[in-house]
């Protein structure tokens, strides 16, 4: 197998395994664990197998093209540093799988757990062996996501949900920051390829964008590694199942941050900003984490704060910018992973066996589980930095670096003291852990009777503790060469000389170690009694909970703040929206004039016709009147609206547009009837409220709207005037005028445009009409009137009562008398209008008219019948099937359009010519006429459908109220 393949397999296998595991049945514990373990083991073997190539070539690479033009390829690149991490990830992953098999309860949906775990492993491997920064971000975010799922595994538990949410929010935020930082790096370097980036350190550090890059990348790293001030998510994440903590919060997830810092160390480190930001965060995390750890009652809480502290130590080491510091940091990454993973597992065993993790409730467990206790003690000792254990070695290196001078600053001066203080705290919490769990009196009220766990649950701890010991005693033989490979991969030519010996003689670091060990022990002795009964959390800082502050901020910003902002920046009311639309449109239209000036054109008065001016005096009055009266006098406004329409229609005639006048008039009639039909269902509106009583605010709003209306009107006037007084450009109109008859076969150019030149527009237009008619129909199907509209109108009730009160009258006499004579005339008009509609239709192509006006005219004939004799009467006599007419019209238009395909012409190509008919002679025949017939049928159907659907509401209500009345009678 080539190295490339094994690289790809290392990534692909965990994800494939994850998918395979998740489809397993819920109770397939062993199968899931076996599969997961196998995947981890294969990963370990694959990684191990490529070590030789890494030694030979420095790194193995695999390039798969993904988004080459964007500089994002699936590039994998494993050097010594990545190799070390890959080994840790798959190795500890394997151990965690074994451990989890015994830890997880049979009731849990275990396949899901292992699936997430494998996916996480894959993502983590991806982070360490990505050869492209963006790909790294991809895997980085995946680790956040899967850690979210793993932390929230027991999602019935509120603390698991909170912990998961917080972890994802913070690490997700960091990931996005990282993405931004990498984008900037890409911007500077011209590539996202890791090799090129690593080679461009000088360029980046000297550029003005260095600080933003640094801050963004650190945001990613610090959030991931739970560094101050983003540390607080980690303790909350302890709600995760313990195997998750053992894996994510010791060896992998949280290590990603410091991994990244080390990875980019050659690019970003060594500047003043780096030293300050990274150093400060590291020191704070180191000391505060350790301090907080002492006062945790929860074993896992203690370990979580300890993790923060140890990662702070690593960060601090990296901040120094010295190669030796980097070596120490990398070394401590490995050491911390081993002892912390084993400690988490031990904590899990304790929890598993006793049912609690509260150190105030635990004690004396050594008697019940001496083996586990011993292992835990060794691991704790490593954590505390006791000699002959791996923790001691890296801490020693840390002390050595702390006393060296790197930059002349307070931070540098404070480093040795902080180092000793933090280490002493570490000793104190380590001792506390061991002492309060395994020694002292046996508590009486443990939930379960403790005993040693099954062998395979302890086995992973044994291996890890063994590693701690081996590395601690013979570092040169065990970790030495591998560490060297890793360090060389990071530092390259800057790799310093360093020694992994256990004994360096009596040096200051040794003295500091002793001081820390002794100080820590004394500190624990002093605090022992207090710790046995104190509240959770450190004294003085107990109230200062980062996580609570964070949650408050998150809620304030992302919930209350967002809602406030949304209501301020937006609205759910219609009027403001329309107002905004008007304002924006006015600004948009005015802007070009503001920029380029406004030339209104010449003012012509002599051409003005007095009659025309008079016509528009009427029109203007109608329009203003309609605007004035629409609130309280709807009928009046409707009539005035009709007046304005009429004047518009006259204008069309005046300026040579007979077709428009015709259409406008017909539409006008139908619209009036339509709105009248609607008025029936609107509420009564009284004029009781006198305008004088309006509030100042309302009046101001009205003035504002008035100003806007005036602005719009003026604007339209100015623009229209400017265009009308300009010489027209050479338009496409001449083509239509010259070709209408010769090629379109019609003299009415407008109609030829509508059915031929631009028949496609008409095609769409009739579709609109049919859609609207269908919508109206659909809506009215479910129409429910307001309570005050259910009863018949007042007039009808009064007239009915009038009729009923008189012995010589039948109910309904009034209406039948009322309509008796008009109905006769209206009926006789029915055939007349039909003929008229046929006339309008036939002449359309040559003279004003056409399918549309004919359709509306015929629809009017129907409406008239409904008006005269009522819905029932008409529908008893006529088959009114408007939906079918619509369908027919639409299909006919489409078929006529498609008919031209038969002749090899594009859609809607028209045929026009003359057909010789016997007796009649030559008759113009154009396919456009058939198209127009489709239009006619559709318009008729749509208009009738809309009006009739509305009209039907009256009889529906009548029927409904009758049924309701009958129901009431039956009940009574």
């Amino acid at each position, binding site marked *: 197998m080539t190295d490339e393949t094994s690289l790809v397999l290392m990534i692909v296998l965990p994800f494939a395994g994850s998918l395979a595991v998740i489809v397993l049945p819920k109770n397939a514990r062993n199968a899931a664990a076996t599969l997961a373990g196998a995947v981890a083991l294969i990963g370990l073997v694959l990684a191990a197998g490529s070590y030789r190539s890494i030694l030979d070539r420095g790194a193995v690479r695999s390039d798969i093209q993904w988004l080459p033009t964007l500089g994002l390829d699936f590039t994998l690149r494993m050097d010594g540093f990545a190799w070390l991490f890959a080994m840790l990830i798959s190795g500890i992953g394997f151990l965690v799988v074994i451990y989890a098999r015994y830890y997880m309860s049979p009731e849990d949906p275990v396949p899901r757990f292992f699936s997430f775990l494998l996916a996480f492993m894959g993502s983590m491997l991806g982070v360490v062996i990505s050869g492209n920064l963006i790909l790294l971000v991809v895997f980085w975010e995946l680790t956040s996501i899967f850690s979210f799922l793993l932390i929230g595994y027991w999602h019935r538990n509120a603390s698991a949900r909170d912990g998961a949410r917080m972890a994802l929010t913070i690490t997700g935020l960091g990931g996005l920051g990282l993405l931004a930082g990498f984008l900037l790096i890409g911007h500077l370097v011209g590539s996202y390829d890791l090799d090129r980036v690593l080679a461009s350190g000088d360029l980046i550090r000297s550029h003005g964008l260095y600080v933003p890059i640094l801050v963004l990348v650190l945001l990613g790293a610090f959030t991931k590694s739970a560094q101050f001030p983003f540390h607080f998510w980690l303790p909350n994440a302890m709600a995760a199942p313990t195997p998750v903590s053992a894996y994510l919060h010791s060896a992998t997830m949280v290590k990603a941050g410091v991994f990244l810092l080390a990875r980019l160390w050659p690019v970003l480190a060594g500047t003043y900003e780096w030293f300050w930001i990274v150093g400060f965060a590291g020191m704070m995390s180191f000391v505060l984490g350790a301090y907080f750890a002492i006062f945790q009652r929860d074993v896992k809480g203690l370990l979580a704060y300890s993790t923060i502290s140890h990662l702070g130590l690593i960060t601090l080491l990296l901040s120094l910018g010295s190669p030796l510091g980097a070596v120490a940091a990398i070394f401590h990454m490995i050491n911390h992973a081993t002892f912390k993973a084993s400690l988490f597992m031990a904590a899990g065993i304790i929890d598993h066996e006793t049912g609690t993790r509260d150190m105030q409730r635990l004690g004396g467990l050594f008697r019940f589980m001496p083996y586990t206790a011993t292992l835990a003690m060794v691991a704790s000792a490593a954590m505390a930095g006791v000699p002959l254990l791996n923790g001691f070695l890296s801490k020693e290196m840390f002390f050595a670096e702390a006393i060296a001078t790197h930059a002349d600053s307070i931070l540098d001066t404070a480093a040795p003291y902080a180092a000793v203080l933090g280490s002493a705290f570490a000793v104190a919490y380590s001792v506390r852990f061991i002492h309060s769990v395994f020694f002292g009196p046996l508590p009486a009220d443990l939930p379960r009777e403790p005993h040693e766990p099954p062998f395979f649950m302890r086995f992973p701890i044994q291996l890890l503790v063994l590693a701690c010991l081996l590395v601690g005693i013979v570092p040169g033989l065990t970790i030495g060469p591998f560490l060297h490979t890793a360090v060389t991969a990071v530092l390259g030519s800057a790799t310093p000389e360093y020694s992994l010996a256990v004994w360096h003689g009596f040096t200051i670091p040794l003295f500091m170690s002793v001081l820390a060990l002794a100080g820590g022990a004394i500190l624990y002795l002093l605090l022992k009694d207090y710790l046995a009964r104190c509240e959770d959390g450190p004294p003085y800082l107990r109230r200062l909970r980062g996580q609570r502050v964070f949650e408050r901020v998150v809620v304030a910003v992302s919930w209350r703040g967002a809602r406030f902002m949304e209501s301020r920046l937006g609205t759910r009311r219609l009027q403001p929206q329309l107002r905004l639309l008007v304002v924006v449109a006015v600004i948009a239209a005015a802007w070009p004039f503001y920029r380029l000036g406004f030339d209104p054109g010449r003012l012509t008065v002599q051409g003005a016709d007095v009659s025309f001016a008079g016509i528009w005096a*009427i029109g203007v009055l109608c329009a203003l009147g309609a605007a004035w009266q629409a609130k309280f006098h709807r009928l009046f406004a409707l009539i005035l609206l009709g007046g304005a329409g009429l004047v518009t229609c006259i204008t069309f005639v005046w300026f040579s547009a007979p077709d428009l006048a015709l259409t406008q008039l017909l539409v006008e009639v139908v619209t009036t009837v339509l709105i009248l039909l609607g008025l029936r269902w609107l509420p009564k509106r009284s004029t009781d409220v006198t305008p004088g009583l309006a509030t100042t605010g309302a009046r101001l709003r009205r003035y504002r709207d008035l100003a806007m209306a005036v602005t719009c009107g003026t604007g339209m006037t100015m623009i229209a005037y400017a265009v009308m007084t300009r010489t027209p450009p050479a338009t496409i109109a001449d083509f239509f005028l010259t070709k209408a008859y010769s090629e379109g076969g019609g003299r009415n150019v407008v109609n030829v445009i509508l059915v031929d030149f631009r028949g496609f527009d008409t095609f769409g237009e009739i579709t609109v009409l049919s859609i609207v008619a269908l919508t109206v129909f659909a809506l009215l199907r479910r129409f429910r009137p307001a309570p005050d509209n259910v009863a*018949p109108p007042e007039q009808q009730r009064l007239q009915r009562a009038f009729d009923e009160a008189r012995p010589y009258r039948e109910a309904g006499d009034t*209406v039948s008398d009322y309509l008796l004579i008009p109905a006769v005339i209206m009926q006789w008009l029915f055939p007349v*209008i039909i003929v008229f509609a046929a006339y309008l239709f036939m002449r359309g192509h040559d003279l004003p008219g056409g399918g549309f006006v004919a359709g509306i005219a015929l629809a009017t004939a129907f409406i008239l019948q409904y008006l005269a004799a009522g819905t029932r009467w008409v529908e008893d006599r006529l088959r009114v099937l408007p939906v079918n007419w619509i369908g027919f019209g639409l299909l006919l238009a489409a078929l006529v359009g498609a008919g031209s395909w038969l002749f090899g012409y594009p859609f809607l190509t028209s045929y026009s010519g003359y057909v010789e008919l016997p007796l009649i002679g030559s008759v113009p025949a154009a396919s456009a006429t058939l198209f127009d017939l489709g239009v006619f049928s559709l318009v008729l159907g749509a208009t009738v459908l809309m009006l009739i659907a509305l009209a039907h509401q009256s009889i529906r209500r009548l029927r409904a109220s009758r049924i309701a009345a009958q129901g009431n009678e039956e009940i009574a």
Partner: protein
Amino acid sequence: MSGVIIAWSVTIAQLLLLAAMACALLRLVRGPRAQDRILSSDALYVGAMLLLLTFGIRAGSTVYFEAALVVALLGFVSTAALAKFLMRGEVIE
């Protein structure tokens, strides 16, 4: 000569019709009640129809005729609907 006669008479006729429409509008605005307004709007329509016919004469063309015909044949539909609404509170029962 004919041209002048026609032009003048059309202009005068249009002004007279305009005055007629203006009177109708005045009544429309003044009301006082809905039936007056509806009646005036009907008168307005008739005035408009005649105005359209005068265009036919002025333009020497019959293309405006249909518009007038539409007013004559269908213009009453909206008036009738308005009137029925007044009487019955509902246009189609």
